[in-house]
C-alpha cells in the first residue's frame, strides 16, 4: 500500500503574509524542501509570500472546507473558533522561549488543538514558529504605561491584541500592515507594536525614531492545514509534515532571536534610540486588565498551573 501511496503526489499551498526577504519565508521554504526530500517528492509544499493566495481569514475558511491549502496564523485568529486559545496571544504570558515551546505539550493546550481539528476542521501542524518579542516603536521614549497614554499604536485587528495594547495604556488603532508606513509618516498613528525583525524589511526606521523594549507579547504562529486533507495523507507523510514543521519552526525562531540582535544593532547604527530601562513590572501589572476584559484570567491561570507556576 505504501508504494501506491507514494506514487500519488500531494501538494500543499502554504500562504503567509511575510515578504520573501523575511526569515519566515525562508523557514517555510526549508520546511517545504525537507518534507519534499523526506517523502521522495510525494508531498510538495508550495510557499506563497505576501498573502498572494488571499486574506488570512479567507484561507482559514477554505481550509475548513477541506482545500489543500495551509496558512500561517496566530492564536488571536484561531480564538474565533476555540475562544480559550486566544490566551496564547496574551501579553506577558510566558517568560521565555523554553516556556513557550513547552506549551505544545500541556494537556489543556492539546485539548484546544484537538477541538480545533475535530470540531472545526483546522489541523494545527505545529506552532514552533515564533517571531519573538514585540516592542513599541514610536517617536518618543516609553518607560511607563503612562507614557503610552493617548498614543495611537497600530495593532492587528483582533480583540486580544487590541485589549493587550489598551491595557498597556495606549489607544489601539486597527490598520492594515501596509498602511503603517504612510500612517506613521503622516502622523495618523503615533507608533506600532512589532518585532525588531519587522522594522527594516518594511522601512519603518524611516518613520520612527525610538524603540521601547516592552517585550509585551511573545508572538507564536500556528501552521494550520485542513483536517480532512491531512487525513488523506499516508501516515509517514503526516509524521514528516509535523516533525519537519517543528524543526524548521524552532530553527527559524532561533534565527529570528539572533536576528533581533543584529537588527537592533543596525537600527542603532541608523540612528534609532533604544529605550531599554522600561518599567516592565508596571507594564506586567497593567497587562492584567487585558485578560480580565476578555474573561481569560481563569484560562490563563489553568495554563500556569500545568506549567507549574
Amino acid at each position: 500500500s505504501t508504494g501506491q501511496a507514494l506514487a500519488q503526489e500531494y501538494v500543499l499551498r502554504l500562504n503567509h503574509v511575510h515578504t520573501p526577504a523575511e526569515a519566515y519565508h525562508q523557514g517555510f521554504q526549508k520546511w517545504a524542501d525537507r518534507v519534499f526530500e523526506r517523502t521522495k517528492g510525494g508531498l510538495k509544499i508550495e510557499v506563497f509570500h505576501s498573502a498572494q493566495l488571499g486574506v488570512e481569514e479567507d484561507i482559514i475558511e477554505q481550509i475548513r472546507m477541506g482545500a489543500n491549502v495551509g496558512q500561517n496564523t496566530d492564536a488571536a485568529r484561531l480564538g474565533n473558533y476555540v475562544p480559550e486559545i486566544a490566551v496564547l496571544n496574551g501579553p506577558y504570558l510566558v517568560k521565555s522561549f523554553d516556556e513557550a515551546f513547552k506549551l505544545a505539550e500541556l494537556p489543556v493546550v492539546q485539548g484546544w488543538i484537538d477541538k480545533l481539528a475535530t470540531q472545526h476542521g483546522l489541523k494545527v501542524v505545529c506552532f514552533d514558529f515564533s517571531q519573538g518579542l514585540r516592542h513599541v516603536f514610536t517617536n518618543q521614549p516609553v518607560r511607563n504605561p503612562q507614557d503610552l497614554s493617548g498614543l495611537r499604536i497600530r495593532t492587528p485587528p483582533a480583540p486580544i491584541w487590541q485589549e493587550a495594547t489598551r491595557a498597556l495604556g495606549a489607544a489601539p488603532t486597527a490598520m492594515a500592515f501596509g498602511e503603517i508606513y504612510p500612517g506613521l509618516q503622516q502622523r495618523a498613528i503615533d507608533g506600532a507594536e512589532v518585532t525588531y525583525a519587522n522594522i527594516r524589511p518594511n522601512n519603518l526606521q524611516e518613520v520612527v525614531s525610538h524603540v521601547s523594549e516592552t517585550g509585551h507579547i511573545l508572538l507564536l504562529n500556528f501552521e494550520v492545514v485542513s483536517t480532512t486533507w491531512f487525513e488523506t495523507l499516508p501516515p509517514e507523510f503526516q509524521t514528516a509534515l509535523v516533525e519537519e514543521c517543528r524543526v524548521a519552526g524552532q530553527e527559524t525562531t532561533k534565527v529570528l532571536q539572533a536576528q533581533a540582535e543584529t537588527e537592533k544593532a543596525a537600527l542603532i547604527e541608523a540612528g534609532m534610540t533604544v529605550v531599554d530601562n522600561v518599567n516592565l513590572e508596571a507594564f506586567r501589572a497593567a497587562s492584567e486588565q487585558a485578560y480580565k476584559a476578555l474573561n481569560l484570567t481563569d484560562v490563563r491561570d489553568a495554563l500556569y498551573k500545568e506549567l507549574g507556576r
Partner: protein
Amino acid sequence: MLLVAIVFAIFLVIGMPVAFAIGISGMMFFLQHPELPISIPLQITVSTTQNFSLLAVPLFIVAGNLMNRSGITEGLLNLASVLTGRLRGGLAQISIVLSALMGGVSGSAIADAAMQSRMLGQQMIDRGMTKGFAAGVLSFSSLLTPIIPPGIGMILFGTIGSVSIGRLFAGGILPALLLGVAMSLSVWITATKRGYPPERSTRPTAKETITAFRGGIWAILFPVILLVGLRAGIFTPSEIGAVAVLYAVFIGFLIYKRMKVSDFIEALESSLGDVGSVMFLISLSAIFGYGIVFERLPELVASGLGTLTDNVQVVMVLIVLLTIVAGLFVDATVLIIMMTPIVLPVVTRLGGDPVHFGIIFVIAATLGNFTPPVGAAMYTVCSILNVSIKDYIKEGWPLLLAISIVTILLIFVPSIVLYIPNLIFG
C-alpha cells in the same frame, strides 16, 4: 488558465457584459481544479470589497457627482477657461494637471479616474472632443496619481523588495512630471490636428480673470486642503475620499449656497449606477486573477529573463514588456507582489539601481489598469462616460505612445529618476 482565456474571449465576442465575462470565465479555473472549494470565487469577490484602500473608489465617485452639483466643477471650468485660454483642448490639459494634484493625496488611479470622469467627461465631449479622446485622456492621465507620492504601488514594491520607500517616493517626482509633460504634448498635438476649439478666442480681461479666480478658488483649494489634511495626519490616504465628499457638501451648501437637498439626493442616485458598474467589475476581476497567481505564471516566465542577456537596460526593457503583457490580465497590485521578488534580484545582480528600477516597474505594472481586456481604470472611465472600448483604443493610443517613450527614456537615463532621491538622501 488557457481555458479561462478562451472562454473569456468567447464571452466578450458574444457581447456579454465584461463584469460577468470576467467572473464566469474565471470560474473555469475552479472547475478544472476540483480540489479547490467551488465557493472560493464568491469569497474572493466579497473580500475585494473588504479592502479599505478600494473604498476610495466609491467615495470619489460620490465626490465627483457632488462637485458637479455644488458649483465646484463650474468654478473649476471657468478658471480653466481663463487659464488655458486659447490653448486647444484646454480641458484635456486640465485633466492632466488635476490628476497630478490628486496624486499628492490619493494613491488610487481608479478613484481619480472615476471622479474626473464625472466632473470633466461630459464637459469635454460638449466642447467638441470625441468620446474616445475624452475617455483616453481621463484614463491615462490618472497614471500620474499613483506615481506621485504617496502611492500604494511604491509602498508595495519597497516593502517586498526591501527598498527605501522614502527614496522611491522622491524618485517618482521627476518621472511623473515628465509623464505629465509628454501626455500634455500628445494631447496638444491631437487637439491641434483635429482643430478642437480653444476655450476662448480673446485674451481674458483682468476683471474676468479675477472673477474666475474668485469663483474657482474652492476648486483649486480642494486638492490643497486634502494635501494639508493628509500631511498633518488628520486623515489617511484611504480616508481621503470621504473628506472629498464632505468638502463638496460643505462648499455646496454653505459657501456657494446653491446645493439643495434634492441635488444631494440626485448626486447620490447617479452615484449608485456608477458604483455598481465600476465596483462589480473590479470585485469580479479578482476571480480572474486567482488562477494566474495559483499557477505562478508571471514568476515562471520572469525567472528565465536573467539568463537571456547581461545588459541591465535590455533586461529592464524585457521586464517592462513582460509586465505590460501580464498587466493585460492582472491587477497592478497583484503584479507587483508576484513579480518584485523575481525581477528585482535579476536587475540588481546586473548592477541596476533598485529605486531606478522600482519607478519603471511600478509605471509598467500600473499601465495594466489602462489596457484591455482587463483594466479597471479603463472600464471605470468607459462605463461612466458610456464609451466603447473600440473608440477608447482608437483614440487613446497616442497617450500610451507618449507614456512608452518616457518609460524608455527613463530606462536609459537613470539620473532622471535618481536625481531627487540623491539630492535628498545623498
